[in-house]
């Protein structure tokens, strides 16, 4: 079952440390994989090794990463970073569109950089379905239905969704992809898997139904910064001729061999190459491990510090929560966050992300003429249902309570979680 606390799954699992590459000394205090993951020492040293040819290096990288998907290496394309990969997807879509721009539908859970990107490049309409408030208020059980209604109402041609929301760790119900396909098989589905790939096992549905699955090599995959990875059918031709990552003959711009070497070594540890397990078994194990640590952390935080994570808020309200490595917690004050981040004596400062108030988009650049609107499925009249907006300067919905994000990965264990909770408790007391 997907629901809430899975204590019955035995505490034994997460007390052990998974077999894995060695990580640097500060790994026990590093809870920031959703931002920039920790690179293993194996990946660090792999980056210094020589390689035969650039194409050979790319081929090996694609083959390793493909193990996390459907093992078909020619569906993997590398980019300088994730944003470059997504820009390339939108460039291709713009090239393929002939007479009219379909509506692009997304949610208010997306990364602001991506929202800026689509706002600046998409000439058609952008419909942003409002669901963040549901998650923040303990109503995550309503997200899937709300999203379905938004999709039915806006009739998009392109849907862009995060597999796991960056801010809260909310994992979409993958059956939404079947729903979209049943509504209209022509809808182009783009899944942002930056917080999923390496955190959870990629399910068959996400691989099969997504036209584009995008992720990055430096978050949960734990490679060196900053490769973007796009999984797509070869026929979409997402390779960027201006980038040497496109396996083109001859020199085509610069490419970062260090990042490729590092990512390949890092992925080898996630896809079972190193541990000689099947990729599915290995990632299932890692997913379970991350989820159990996250759940335990959330539970302990509530018991000892009286701090309720977004996940706990939803569980308390009777919603199911699909645990994964991300836990978002509204902290009592900035002082607690500062205390926690400060290095104290022998302790490393805890590395996590304080999700400060963010804007969807700054005032830089232009916005094409296509309208932008928030789809509020609870709207009681046409103007509140489709709320026409200018995405510039609008604040991203959050809890407003110093939301902080902690990430639990395969290099953590129960002792790390307990130590983290101790330190949060201390930081909280210090404030008092």
């Amino acid at each position, binding site marked *: 079952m997907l629901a809430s606390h899975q204590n019955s799954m035995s505490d034994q699992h997460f007390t052990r440390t998974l077999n894995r590459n060695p990580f640097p000394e500060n790994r026990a205090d590093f809870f920031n994989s959703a931002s920039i993951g920790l690179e293993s020492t194996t990946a660090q040293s792999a980056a210094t090794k020589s390689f035969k040819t650039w194409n050979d290096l790319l081929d090996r990288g694609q083959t390793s990463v493909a193990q996390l998907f459907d093992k078909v290496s020619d569906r993997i394309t590398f980019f300088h970073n994730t944003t470059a990969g997504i820009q390339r997807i939108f460039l291709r*879509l713009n090239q*393929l*569109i*002939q*007479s*009219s*721009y*379909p*509506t692009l539908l997304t949610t208010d859970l997306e990364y602001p950089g991506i929202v800026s990107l689509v706002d600046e490049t998409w*000439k*058609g*309409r952008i*419909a942003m379905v409002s669901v963040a408030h549901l998650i923040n208020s303990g109503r995550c059980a309503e997200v899937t239905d709300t999203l*379905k*209604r938004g999709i*039915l*109402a*806006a*009739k*998009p*041609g392109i849907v862009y969704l995060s597999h796991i929301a960056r801010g809260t760790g909310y994992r979409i119900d993958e059956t939404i992809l079947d*729903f979209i396909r*049943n*509504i*209209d*098989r*022509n*809808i*182009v589905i783009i899944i942002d898997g930056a917080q999923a790939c390496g955190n959870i096992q990629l399910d068959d549905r996400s691989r099969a139904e997504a036209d584009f699955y995008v992720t990055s090599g430096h978050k949960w995959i734990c490679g060196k910064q900053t490769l973007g990875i796009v999984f797509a*059918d070869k*026929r*979409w031709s997402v390779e960027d001729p201006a980038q040497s990552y496109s396996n083109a003959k001859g020199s085509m711009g610069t490419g970062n061999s260090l990042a490729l070497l590092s990512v390949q070594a890092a992925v080898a540890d996630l896809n079972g190459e190193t541990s000689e397990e099947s990729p599915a078994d290995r990632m299932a194990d890692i997913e379970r491990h991350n989820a159990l640590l996250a759940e335990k952390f959330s539970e302990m935080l509530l018991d000892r510090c009286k701090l309720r994570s977004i996940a706990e808020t939803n569980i308390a309200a009777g919603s199911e929560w699909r645990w994964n490595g991300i836990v978002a917690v509204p902290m009592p004050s900035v002082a607690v966050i500062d205390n926690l981040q400060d290095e104290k004596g022998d302790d490393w400062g805890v590395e996590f992300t304080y999700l400060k108030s963010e804007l969807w988009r700054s005032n830089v650049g232009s916005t*094409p*003429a*296509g*309208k932008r*609107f928030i789809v509020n*499925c609870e709207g*009681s*009249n*046409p103007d509140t*249902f*489709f709320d*026409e907006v200018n995405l510039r300067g609008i604040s991203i919905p959050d809890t407003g309570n110093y939301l902080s994000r902690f990430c639990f990965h395969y290099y953590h264990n129960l002792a790390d979680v307990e130590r983290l909770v101790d330190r949060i408790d201390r930081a909280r007391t210090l404030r008092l």
Partner: protein
Amino acid sequence: MLSRFFKRSNKGGPSEKEEGTPTTPESHVESASHNPLVPCVLVVGDFRETDAIGFAKRAWKKIDAHYEAENAFFGPAPVPVANPLAPQGSHCIGFDEDRSMFDSPCVFPIPVNDFGRATSPTFQMHILELFKDHNIVGIISCGTADTNIGLAEAVRFIDVPVLLVLDSTLDGPELFIPNARELITGKMHKNEANAEQLVPNALQLIPNNALQAQAILSKVGVLSTNRPNPVVQLLCFPPDDPYVKDLRSAVESNVEETNRSKISPELVDITRFQVKKNAVLLCLGYYETLAAIPKSIKNCQLLLSDGFDERAAKSEKIEVGHYYQISPVFDPLEHALDAYKVVNRLWRDSQDLNPDDLPIRLRSKIQNVRELLEREYGDRYRFVGATNQRGGFYAKKVPMRRRRRFLPDPRQRL
């Protein structure tokens, strides 16, 4: 809520349905849970018992009959609610889960009554509610220009093909370009224009008023032949009606552009209604216009625009032996059925995704509809932009059908 506008029939066939009667759901379809994936098409128009022009009801009958003839896979279609205060009923749409919905040759038709108030927020919210709960793959508008103004406002953010069946207003399709208003008012720089603004999300199946104006003026020309100083009078009522304004503008533009020096329409004020003897009187409006005319029309050649319906032939206000009715070459009811069939086809074709032809997935639906209409019904459709150039209009001579008056026996007079 939703079902305020339509309710389900509790009976099997269309012949058994009774308009406006509250029903209790009982078929297997109603007992099934609502399936939001079922493809639906909205048939929008004025379904009121009185005050409506009646076309929507006839078009609905035709569409419903076709759906029933094709086995009504998703259960009987709803019956239009004629009374806005009619009690709520179920509007669940489902089907036998053991079967694939793609076995259905037809999408599920839903009649939507605008009650002559399509611009009201209630109607627009009702449209949104329908979209929110159903997989609506197209809209067939069987209403007037007024209906389309409200409809365009309601679906301004929704990317769904709209097929205009009845309304011939020139800028009808342009209402369905979401950003057209900014372009028209000049608030947007020309360079910012994009494909979304240039391609309306609607196709006008009935020929537009430019073609109607051609037919009108050619008939006026014939009726004026051999008269040294022909008098052409023009009555436009209601003057602010979008259809009337549009048709008047099309007539005046045509006169100007084609340099018809002999035809110079004089505008008639309905409050000072005076038809000149032997004039050609051209009436642009609806059947209701006749009721507004203060006195009878006589001693003239009368032309009525396509907004008038067959009731004009019995009108007491017309005291001439015959009049000329401007009509589209093809029956608008056929256009309504074509619209339904093409939406069915569009939905079925969309299931046959060809992975080798990825760009086709990004084509606008309205473009697919247009190609289907031109391919499947080429004798009736050839579009330039969003308007159909095939068919056009013609002037039909209609004899008046007077009710026999009681005349006293001449012998008694003696």
